[in-house]
């Protein structure tokens, strides 16, 4: 993602900013841009923009933030949140922005997006993740069939990719979570 030569922000886009606040349950205006989130973030060095810039763009309500890869690759470790002087949960902000981005059809990192989807699918079906089908689904989704095999095969022989998955005890009850009114409402959006 490139921020662009000149940001012709005429004004702050209050609507986008409010939507990010609503979905994340955070107030992005609480951030005073000290950069401590970026300083501690384990994935930030490998991203297009660091977390504090995600927040700055969110403060402007700039749709540029939807194009960021950072929001997809946040691993929700919450190091940022733990150390934030203003108690802003940056992980939640990133998550909220991915929701909006997906709705708008902007997926800056399809692999991360696919993993997220397949992971949730797997959990929905079994109550926990079943690694082998998830890995295979990712292979199909990304059409990268041979990558990671050097890691995957030894893991298989060490039993990290069991052939038969386990289901949790009260699966039906668990699946109600996905069918609740609130979940459906958000899903529809």
């Amino acid at each position: 993602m490139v921020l662009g030569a000149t940001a012709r922000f005429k004004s702050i886009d209050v609507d986008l900013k409010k939507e990010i606040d609503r979905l994340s349950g955070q107030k992005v205006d609480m951030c005073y841009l000290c950069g401590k989130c970026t300083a501690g973030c384990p994935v930030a060095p490998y991203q297009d923009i660091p977390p504090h810039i995600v927040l700055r763009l969110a403060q402007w309500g700039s749709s540029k933030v939807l194009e960021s890869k950072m929001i997809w690759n946040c691993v929700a470790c919450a190091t940022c949140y733990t150390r934030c002087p203003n108690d802003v949960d940056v992980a939640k902000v990133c998550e909220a922005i991915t929701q909006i981005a997906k709705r708008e059809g902007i997926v800056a990192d399809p692999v991360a997006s696919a993993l997220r989807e397949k992971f949730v699918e797997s959990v929905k079906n079994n109550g926990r993740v079943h690694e082998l089908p998830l890995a295979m689904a990712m292979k199909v989704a990304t059409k990268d069939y041979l990558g990671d095999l050097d890691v995957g095969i030894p893991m298989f022989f060490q039993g990290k990719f069991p052939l038969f998955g386990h289901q949790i005890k009260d699966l039906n009850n668990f699946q109600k979570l996905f069918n609740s009114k609130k979940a459906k409402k958000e899903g529809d959006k």
Partner: protein
Amino acid sequence: MSRVGVFICHCGANIAGKVDVAKVSDDAINIPGVVYSSHQKYSCSEAGQKVIIDAIKENHIDKVVIGSCSPKMHENTFRKTIEQAGLNPYMLEIANLREHVSWVTADKDSATRKAFDLVKAAVGKVSFAKPLTPGQVTVEKRALVIGGGIAGIQAALDIANMGYEVVMVEKEPSIGGRMAQLDKTFPTLDCSACILSPRMVDVAQHPNIRLLTYSEVENVNGYVGNFNVTIRKKAKFVDESICTGCLECVTKCPLKKKIPNEFENGKAPRGAIYVPFAQAVPKVPVIDKEHCQWLLSPDPDTIEVAEGEKKPKRKCGVCQKKCEQGAINFEMEDELINEKFGAIVLATGFNLFDQKKYGEYGAGEIPDVITGLDFERMVNSSGPTEGKIVRPSNGEKPKKVAFIQCVGSRDEAKGVPYCSRICCMYTAKQAILVREKLPDAEVYVFYMDIRAAGKGYEEFVLRAQREYGANYVRGRVSRIYEQDGHLVLKAADTILGMPLEMEADMVILATGSIAREDSVALANTIGITTDAYGFISEVHPKLKPVEVPREGVFACGAALSPRDIPDTVATAGAVAAKVGVLFSNDILMSDPMVANIDPMICVACGACVEVCPYSAITMEEFRGKKFAKVNEAMCQGCGTCSAACRPGAAQLRGQTDEQILKSIEAVLQW
């Protein structure tokens, strides 16, 4: 032959880190006249002083050289020390081995050599020192306060409440100063006039305070406890003792919409006869002789006309006709008042940076680009727009307001590298006021850093951002121009690292504080110094923050450096305390290190009389012989006369020609 004792101080590692103190001390014993030499860690400590006292007594030392820090720091300390040992306190010479050697010399060997040279010079000089006795002067327990802003008001009230008489001199027609121009104050948002006006009235009504408005200090002579001050009381052309303050004259002046009112920062008019603002103290109008038609028209008595022709009359004179009290007196003239004071307080305040120096922000030509002070007047209910925030270009409510901080602050290219300390806070306050009065307006604040170091200040700025929704953008605006009835700001968001362009309806420049344009002239009148920017220099920024280099003169508030109201009031209180300490003495000891002219050598050439900057030398005559004589109470010990005196009759005590020559000789010989 004198018996000199040499004491070298390590000053911890300050001197000993660069100078081989043991070597200097060992070598010093070989200097002729030195009978004792030693070195120690901290000479100024109690233990260190005891070592000196004991050594003086044991070795019958009668003159002392101490190699230590600057005499500015500890000369007085060590004078007291040797006095305790029974010596005259002036039998002391300090070799400055810290500021003049260890702090400024990188090489250890040369530092040690230089230190020894300075010690030699000091020994040479002190060998010819003579015992001196300070004189005594009385203290005139009256204070002069120059400036009637919040600093002067606070200082005057505090001094007056101690029971001392105060004269307050204010240049403008009313006291109140900058604070009277402000609308609300940070961080509490209380109304400036509401907290200031009662104090202004207190000043006017205080039995110990005499108020001289529309007056300026012309000349200051004398010395601590006994200043002779000349004050010019400018003609107001209105008799204060008769005027009732009805202001009928003001409303009738035909020029009342013609002259820009300085109090309104020129954004609202006043007449030629005017009071600057409604709550003015004293509420007596003055006539501005630069504009008054009566005063500008020629005097009929001086005009010669042909016989039979009518002499032209003076123009206008409406105010005089309307005044039922007959208080208008066009014959009034400036009055010079001479008074004696024991202490002088400078509370002369500050000016604001001129936005015209920022061509990139329109140089004051774009009507919708205004300064923070303009905004203060605009948002004030008694200001030019009666408190309505409107675009000066069309009188409409702005939908988008941008603030630019650091205009005339932290800008080396514009000659103002310092931080003005008030702009971050007043911008946050003004951003809040915009959002309060115009809830639909967007507010953007362009800043470099937010400096909110004060009680409740950081919280206040965060409130402006979070509660009032002021959008802060880090980055300095490069340019403002007009386009399609809007202003366009070329700016940057340095957090994003991107340039940005933004439209706005109105821009408020947070102009910084600068020294008053007449501060240097005033400092020269009083005989004190200013810093590179024209602010008054204090003696020590930390330990003597309100004292200035002329004893008996004190300064407070923004005359010293940019500061806000709390700091101004605090320093004003500090000044009052210092004046109180001075006035608690009935008699002061005067410095004996002043000039003395030997009448037997003096040839009465008068060179010294001419060069003396303090007018302390006069020509006397005794039994037909003329000679120059120094008024020791007025002499400041500068030594100019001594340098000018050809026969060498004028000598500065403690710095005689003999002493100086001997110290040079000592460096060269031994």
